[in-house]
């Protein structure tokens, strides 16, 4: 395989990571909503933790995007 083609294939494969991060972020908000509906009184106090979880899950998806960008524009 040519090097240029391999780079683009690699960048495409990195998009899988973005999809995985989508599952992760969906999980974070889904679980929050599920438990928030069971105990709405405690939900507001957990908003900080919700966004920490969201940030951690999202960062890994963004890393996948960085990998794709590096493969296309830098490598």
């Amino acid at each position, binding site marked *: 395989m040519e090097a240029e083609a391999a780079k683009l294939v690699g960048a495409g494969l990195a998009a899988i990571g973005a999809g995985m991060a989508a599952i992760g972020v969906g999980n974070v908000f889904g679980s929050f909503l599920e438990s928030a509906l069971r105990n709405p009184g405690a939900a507001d106090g957990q908003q900080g933790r919700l966004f920490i979880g969201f940030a951690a899950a*999202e960062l890994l998806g963004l*890393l996948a995007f*960085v990998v794709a960008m590096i493969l296309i524009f830098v490598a």
Partner: protein
Amino acid sequence: MAAEQGKVDPMKQFQIEPLFGSANWELAGFNIAFTNSALWMAITVILLWTFVAGGMKRELVPGRWQMAVESFTGFIDDMLEANVGKEGRKYVSYIFSLFMFILFANLLGLLPIGVLGLHPFTFTSHFTVTGVLAVISFSIVLVVGFWKHGIKFFTLFVPHGTPAAMVLPIALIEFFSFMIRPFSLALRLFVAMMAGHVLLKVLSSFVIDGLNAGVGTSLMVAIPSFALMIAISALEILVAGIQAYVFALLTSLYINDAEHLH
């Protein structure tokens, strides 16, 4: 470069250009050209200053403007109270400046002033800018930590009740997770902003190429892409707010570590 085929280059919006013929300004051997990035930072600061100054009237019965500013300061105050405790009050000025600066920068970068022929520039989509912000936050954590706890600050790397056999590996992991913080902080904001703007430009190239290619592609490609673009723009406004909030929230959590250790 992969972007040569399309008419819209999604990376062109991130180009830094010197303005007003300042390309050759130098100070002690360094180029200090007044770039579009600097221009938008100046605009952000002026707008932010105007916004806050307009609400600093300290009236007993606040008007709308003062109410808007106070709801932001109250929001940051509550966040620090919840995450750091009463020692958090002294960081309100820093976290407030940080949050509002990033929020205004993100939102200004999304302004649709391209239709007027101007080019909005999102300086938070540059790693240098977010990197400096993250390093400032990280230095505050280090300075506060060592100032308050001295050499005991290193106990941050060993949580309470760690079994003796596990001290070394846990200290190593905690040390790395501590040192990686400024990078993850800066990378998150920079990539989130950049990804959104690239996505918008890619969709805009679909719209333009679709319209140019004929009636069929106009209906099948350009119009759905345009609808998606509007939806993504709304999502980007949400992301602009969330990323500013996450940056401020994580900074306050790190400050909590420095104030209270584990």
